[in-house]
C-alpha cells in the first residue's frame, strides 16, 4: 500500500498541505461543477441549446465534458488512482474507455439510422 500521497491537483496549480485538506478541496471543486451543471440545466441558455456541434446541442456537450471532469477527480482523488502505479492506472482507465467509446459510437449511429427509417419509411406510428 502506497502511503505517500500526491497532494497536487490541476497539474500542480493547487498544492495541499495534507491529504485531508486535498479531499475537502476536491469536494469543493466537485460541488461547484455540480452547481454549474444544475444552473445550466435549469436556465438552458438559448445560445447553448440553439447551437449544434457534431449532431448534438452545445449544452449537452458541456454537460458531458463536465461529467467526465467530475469522473476524473472522483477516480483520481477519491479512488486514489493518482497514488497508484501508472501501469495499474492505465489498465483500469483505458480498457473501459476504449470499449465504451466503441459501443457508443456503433449504437448511436445505428439509432440515428433507425430514426431515419421511422421518419422516411412507410410505417405509420402516430395514430
Amino acid at each position, binding site marked *: 500500500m502506497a502511503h505517500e500521497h500526491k497532494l497536487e491537483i490541476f497539474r500542480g496549480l493547487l498544492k495541499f498541505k495534507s491529504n485531508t485538506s486535498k479531499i475537502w478541496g476536491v469536494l469543493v471543486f466537485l460541488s461547484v461543477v455540480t452547481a454549474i451543471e444544475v444552473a445550466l440545466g435549469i436556465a438552458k441558455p438559448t445560445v447553448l441549446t440553439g447551437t449544434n456541434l457534431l449532431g448534438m446541442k452545445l449544452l449537452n456537450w458541456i454537460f458531458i465534458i463536465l461529467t467526465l471532469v467530475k469522473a476524473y477527480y472522483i477516480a483520481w482523488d477519491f479512488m486514489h488512482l493518482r497514488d497508484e502505479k501508472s501501469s495499474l492506472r492505465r*489498465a*483500469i482507465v483505458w480498457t473501459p474507455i476504449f470499449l465504451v467509446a466503441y459501443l457508443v459510437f456503433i449504437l448511436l449511429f445505428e439509432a440515428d439510422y433507425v430514426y431515419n427509417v421511422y421518419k422516411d419509411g412507410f410505417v405509420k406510428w402516430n395514430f
Partner: protein
Amino acid sequence: MDSTVTSASEENVWGGGNRPLGASYGKLMMWFFLVSDALTFSGFLAAYGFSRFKFIETWPIADEVFTHVPFFHGNFPMYYVAFMTFILIMSSVTMVLAVDAGHNNKKTAVIWYMFLTIIGGAIFVGSQAWEWATFIKGDYGAVETNGGRILQFVNAETGDRVALSEFAKTLPDDRTEHERKNGVWYYDEGYLPTYTVNEVIAGLKANDDVVIRTEQIIQEGELKGEKMVLDRAASLEKIKDGALVVEGANLIRNEYGSRLFADFFFFITGFHGFHVFSGVVINIIIFFNVILGTYERRGHYEMVEKVGLYWHFVDLVWVFVFTFFYLV
C-alpha cells in the same frame, strides 16, 4: 542448467514475489470487479442513448418529469436530484476520510467517518425510493392513443399542464364488475384509472381552454425544443384516437411519453439503487468489524480502502446517471 548465469537482479525479477502493479491481491480483484461493473453500466447507458436517438423527436423532457421536492408543492425541476448528488458526493468524502484515518490507524475516526458514510448512503437510497414512488404515482395523467402515443393536456392560454381531474367529466357508468360467483374462469380486477376515455373526451369538449400537447418536440423556430401544442380544433380531432387513460408509470406504459423512458428509468436507477443498497450493507459490516477491532489486530485497514473503492464507484456511476437521465 549449469550454463545459466544468475545475477542478483535477475533473481529478483524471476524469483517470484514481484508486485508489478504495486497493489495487493484484494485491491486488484476489487478493481477487476469495478471495471466489469463499469462496463455493465455503460452498456445500460449506451442502450438508453440508442433508444433516445431512435426517438429523438419524441423523447420526454426530464425537466418536466422530475419536478418534485418532498414536503414542498410546486415546480422545482432537478433541485432534488442535485441534492441527492450532493449527498452521495458528501458520503464519498467521508469514506475517503475514513480510508485516510485507517492509514493512520486512528480507530475512532474510522468509526465516525464510516458511520457518516452509512447515513449518507441511507439518505440517498431513501430519496431514490421517494423518487420512484412519485414517478409511479404520476401527477397530471394522460391519454394514450391507439398507436401508443401519449397525449397530455395543457391550458391554451398559459401553457401550464392541466390534470385530468381538473377537467374530466363524471359520466353515469353502467359498468358492472365481474365477480367470482358469476364466472367459471375468474381473475381479480386489475387497477382501473380514475376516469374513462369517454369522460376525458367529454371534459375536453366542455372546456374551451384545454388543448392537447403531443410528444412531438418542435425542431425549428422560436419554440424549438418544446413539445408541440395543438390548437383547439386539432385537439378535438386528435382525442378521437384516444384508447386508454394513463396515470403514473409502470413497465408497460407511462404518462410522461415514450414507454422506453420509464423502462430505462426503472432499470438503470433501480440497478444503481441496488448497488447503493448493497454498498450500505457492506459498509455496515465493515463498520462493525472496525468497532470490534478486527483491522486493528490485523495491523492495517486495507479492507476499509477496498470497500471505499466500491463506494466511490457507486458515486462515479451516479454522476453519469445524473447527466444522462436528468441533464442531457
